[in-house]
């Protein structure tokens, strides 16, 4: 029961969601809609579960006075303020939207902006043309970078009445080699996803169920 039950449920639900694509049958379509709704509720609960485990994790750090437990207090405090504000004053006014607008948003945006600095230092320290492939990567990168900004678009030459600039070259790199590369990868990964999905439905792939499945 502990093992065949979930796998059987998975097979039935998986086949239903697969078949619905090919039949206009009203009953199957209705159940397809149900499964989509149920799936969203389950995902919502799972996400809440994730946050609970974060709370437990930081709670343990505080209890064990592990290193940096002071910072765990800050995390638990931030979490509690948001939940209390959200429940009492709702999502639309009071501290909840204010904290999102002036605490969470700027910090999340700034953390991402740090990457501009990391990319710069990586460009200087890590991006070496060690081999032909790495060299091609850098040349394509430089062409695209220069060709996509106003300054770079002005560098070029006139041939006949058309002006060929770095932008034309960068458009070509994006529309031909880059397109072929992304398409080649996409086809391969698409096959991989399909194979994994089939294995899950047929119960061959059970690792996601954990020990003893």
């Amino acid at each position, binding site marked *: 029961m502990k093992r065949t039950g979930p796998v059987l449920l998975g097979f039935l639900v998986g086949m239903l969601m697969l078949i619905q694509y090919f039949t206009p049958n009203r009953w199957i379509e209705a159940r397809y809609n149900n499964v989509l709704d149920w799936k969203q509720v389950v995902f919502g609960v799972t996400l809440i579960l994730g946050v609970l485990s974060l709370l437990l994790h930081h709670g343990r750090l505080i209890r064990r006075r592990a290193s940096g437990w002071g910072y765990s207090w800050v995390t638990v405090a931030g979490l509690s303020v948001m939940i209390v504000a959200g429940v009492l004053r709702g999502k639309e006014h009071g501290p909840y939207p204010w904290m999102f607008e002036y605490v969470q948003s700027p910090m999340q945006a700034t953390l991402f902006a740090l990457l501009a600095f990391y990319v710069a230092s990586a460009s200087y320290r890590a991006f070496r043309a060690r081999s032909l492939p790495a060299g091609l990567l850098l040349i394509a990168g430089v062409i695209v970078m220069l060709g996509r900004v106003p300054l770079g678009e002005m560098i070029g030459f006139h041939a006949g009445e058309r002006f060929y600039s770095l932008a034309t070259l960068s458009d070509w790199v994006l529309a031909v080699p880059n*397109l072929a590369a*992304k398409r080649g990868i996409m086809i391969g990964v698409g096959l991989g996803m399909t194979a994994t999905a089939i294995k899950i439905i047929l119960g061959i792939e059970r690792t996601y169920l954990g020990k003893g499945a």
Partner: protein
Amino acid sequence: MAPTGSAWHEGLSRVDRRVLFLAVAAAVALPLLFPLNLPIRISQEARAFHREMEGVAPGRVILLSFDYEPDTMAELDPMSLAVLRHAFGRGVRVVAMTTYAGGVGIAERILAQAAAEAGKSYGTDYAFLGYNPDYSATMLRIGESLRGAYPTDNYGRPTDELPLLQGVDRYAEIPLVVTISASALSEYWVIWAGGKYHARIIAGNTAIQAVLIYPFLQTGQLAGMLGGLKGAAEYERLVGRDGAGVRGMDAQSLAHFLIVLFILLGNLGYLLQRRVRARETRV
């Protein structure tokens, strides 16, 4: 005993990271203080994006999905604002949603700003459905019934009562799906909304995502695309209202040239070191 000749390029490769950081900060800050207003060339993908928006008849309802969080708002806010200004300016109505919990705050801020500018009223000219967990199920559920996917809007009002959504419940009744997306959401819209329901989709993307979806542009699975802050600047010029996209282009230009300089210097130092090492091993 390191040969003396290698001293200066040894230094090249041992520059402290923080010196590089200061150079980047300067390259970005200076043009913001002293604008250069360089000309902006419009790409084909941005023209296609604009053409698709122009093709929607006034009064029709388009679906605008804010598929991003605060971390990429610098690149994508200018796009969503420009799309709303373009739509409201042409009398096109908008039903908005988001597939990220972090997108709700962003969507509310931009919808409020654009609606106030154009004097549009909630419920008739535009509506905001809010966030639904599990984007693939949401995109498919909208194909069956928009009101089924979102029983209530973001503010708890049942979607059956919204005047905007009368006669609008499936992709067939939505002339255009516009996704402003950070990670692979534009690709998922193509797979889930385009796959079974043949929705017509245009996407405004972060630069990093834009480069991944050229295959979908070529096959027509995506009808138009904006790529990064440059895409936002191009669309702002096409819509005729310059915004943060255009204002950022000078800094973008200068910073790119700086990064290219870093790559060249880094590799120069590397090549010199390799030649010195090669000469040492031969000695």
